[in-house]
């Protein structure tokens, strides 16, 4: 952050020292160039617990426990995984949502079914998310 700040200040100073005529042109050029991110992944990383907003919305103790389990799984186990889930949203997100919306029993059954469908054997049945290349399978509860 501070590095970026100083860079900005130095840049502005350098530009303002330069003649007024093409000042704006150079500034525009540099704005375009610096907008080309050399590396998109250097965008600040978001902590697991901030990635999934709905985790913080719990209406009872059971949901609270499941959310806790989910967070533990996401931060310490899923984060170390080589192959990730073949779906978007991932099985853990899907299961947590299902438990919250359908109750513990139905939700867990739905989650287990999702896990056994997470085998990448039938990609033709789902649409592919262009960004992540994962199969789209959102929770659909009437």
């Amino acid at each position, binding site marked *: 952050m501070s590095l970026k700040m100083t860079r900005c200040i130095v840049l502005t100073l350098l530009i303002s020292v330069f003649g007024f005529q093409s000042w704006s042109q150079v500034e525009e050029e540099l704005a375009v160039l610096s907008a080309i991110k050399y590396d998109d992944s250097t965008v600040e990383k978001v902590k697991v617990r901030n990635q999934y907003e709905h985790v913080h919305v719990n209406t009872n103790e059971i949901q609270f426990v499941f959310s806790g389990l989910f967070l533990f799984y996401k931060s310490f186990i899923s984060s170390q995984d080589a192959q990730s889930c073949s779906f978007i949203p991932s099985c853990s997100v899907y299961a947590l949502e299902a438990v919250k919306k359908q109750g513990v029993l*139905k939700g867990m*059954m739905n*989650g*287990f*079914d*999702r*896990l*056994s*469908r997470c085998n990448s054997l039938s990609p033709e049945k789902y649409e592919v998310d262009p960004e992540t290349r994962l199969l789209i399978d959102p929770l659909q509860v009437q």
Partner: protein
Amino acid sequence: MRLFLLIFTLLWTTNLCYSQDIYTVNKSKEFASYLFKSGQYELSAVEYERLLFMEKNNDLLKIALVRSYFENGELEKAIKRTESLYTSLSDFPNPMGELYLQMLILGKRFEGFDSSAENLPIDKEKLNIYELHRDIMAGNWAEAEVKIPQLNFNQPSISGLNRLSKQVSIFKPKKPWVSVLMSAVLPGSGKFYTGDYKDGIFSLLVVGGTAFQSYRGFSKNGASSTVGWVFAGLSTGFYAGNIYGSAKAVKVYNQNFWLEIENDAEDIIRSSY
């Protein structure tokens, strides 16, 4: 005398301006039609709006304007603008009336369609086809099945829709209880019923594997076996999940059939306009 002189010069200068003006009605029409033909619908819409401001009652401009919005993918806007262009439905000239009906059908505005179809000056044969399209877009296939044989098969869309209608009439929806029963007896088999063989086999292996491990745990260490309990839990979970999933698979199977029919029908209808 001086007044006349002034008026004269005024008229003269205006005329002079007109000679090199590129905002005249004719030039604007030419430019707008160039924009439309080159596919720049967003810009051609702006241009036609301006032209309509100058020639409020030009039907050709009205149609071109609405078409610009329509081609630019702004269906709702196109419908609203059409409605604001005429005071009553009977004023719609023929191509406009048809365009309006087409947009109502594609936008699934069935109430609007029903209230305006009869009042628009459109010939009966074409209206029948639009009514068929309306029924199909509304998912009313029973009605469509009755109407299709009465229509002229040379019209685009009719033979395609007839094919879809036959598919619908022979379709037998799968029953959830069958797959639930099958999965309860043999894990995974319910998914065979809907044609999801790979998911079925996978479920069978997972349920079988975890059940076997649980059996191994219990037979080794008795009822206090952690491994036994852990795998028993997993096995039960996967077993129950598979039953739930089999019912869901049937639902999805039936839904997908209708989804595909709907998409095909919309494609056929859209391409006939």
